[in-house]
């Protein structure tokens, strides 16, 4: 199962890199970022962590890896983070919610839709957290350099 997940998430993220027109030499890295994120998410969910914190942690790690890659290759961070977070996006939940709406099961639909919204929030939170962390590190380094 884990090997299946790894292969599927690698190719899905890299394919999204192509759909979003990422530069050719970054495609493999896009795939790897997506794979890392999805493996963390799948592992946490398998360990019975709720999917919201699992998404939060996975997107935090994705953002950290993307930032490191972005600094290394002097590109904007979104080139790696966008294809990377695609597997985490609650597409299946949004679909489930819609299906329940159509079948007139509004209470199930709204609760699933709320969950989908919370997960999108968790993705964004993870990204923002790691950015804030990055800025703090930068500032600390700057002040240290000034003190010297």
């Amino acid at each position: 199962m884990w090997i299946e997940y790894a292969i599927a998430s690698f190719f899905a993220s890299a394919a999204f890199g192509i759909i979003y027109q990422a530069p050719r030499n970054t495609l493999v890295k896009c795939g790897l970022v997506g794979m890392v994120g999805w493996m963390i998410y799948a592992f946490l969910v398998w360990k019975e962590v709720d999917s919201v914190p699992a998404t939060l942690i996975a997107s935090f790690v994705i953002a950290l890896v993307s930032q490191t890659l972005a600094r290394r290759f002097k590109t904007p961070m979104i080139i790696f983070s966008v294809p990377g977070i695609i597997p985490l996006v609650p597409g299946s939940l949004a679909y489930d919610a819609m299906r329940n709406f159509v079948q007139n099961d509004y209470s199930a639909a709204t609760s699933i839709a709320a969950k989908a919204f919370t997960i999108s929030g968790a993705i964004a939170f993870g990204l923002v957290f790691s950015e804030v962390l990055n800025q703090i590190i930068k500032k600390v380094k700057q002040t240290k350099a000034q003190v010297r």
Partner: protein
Amino acid sequence: MERTEDLIELCLLMGKIMQQNGAETYRVEDTMTRIAQSFGRDESQSYVTPTGIMFTISPGAHAKLVRVSARETNLEKVNLANDVSRKIASGEMSTHVAYKELRKIETSPTDYSVLMQIISATLASGFFTIMFQGSWYDFLPACLAGGLGFIALINFIRLFEIKFVAEFVASLLIGFTAFSLFSFGIGKEVDKIVVGSIMPLVPGLLITNAVRDLMAGHLISGLAKGAEAFLTAFAIGAGIAVMFALF
């Protein structure tokens, strides 16, 4: 000394390219002010929304406006524009050269052929089905439905010019393909097939960017992107829903 007009045009074009191709709002604003700064204009102001960009070079000067009518995600262009702004900041490029370079980026054709995009959407659909715990029996039907949906999407966008109609028709086709294959006994779980094959259409980036913009204080951008994402999700859901009702 660079001419002020040239500098304003340069900043606006830079902002337009970045905004059109999916850069984050704060990054667009930041890049525009930085370019102005690197030519000694420290008091420029920029105001970026998903549908238009306003920029003024100094207090009291005229503000200029650029309309952004269509948005897509093209990371290559964001990357190239970023390179140009880096070179401007380090003083390697004059406004004139940079402007020419940006024009080239704006009109340059996409790096991947349409066929290659269709193939990757096809594969992505199949692999998403696997990731959502579908079985390998569902792989091929998901590929087929997702690929057909993506072909429909890119062709109908040209035809209708209203994105949401194209998305609706594309998801109709996905639903039709998945459900009819399923009724012929191809595929194990129709839910997983549909979920995997709508993934290339799902506005995942928009949803995330919307929440992110809201958090960063870009309230207008956040709400606008959220509205766009909601409409897209609704169009996809409605398309699938029609097929649910039929089958």
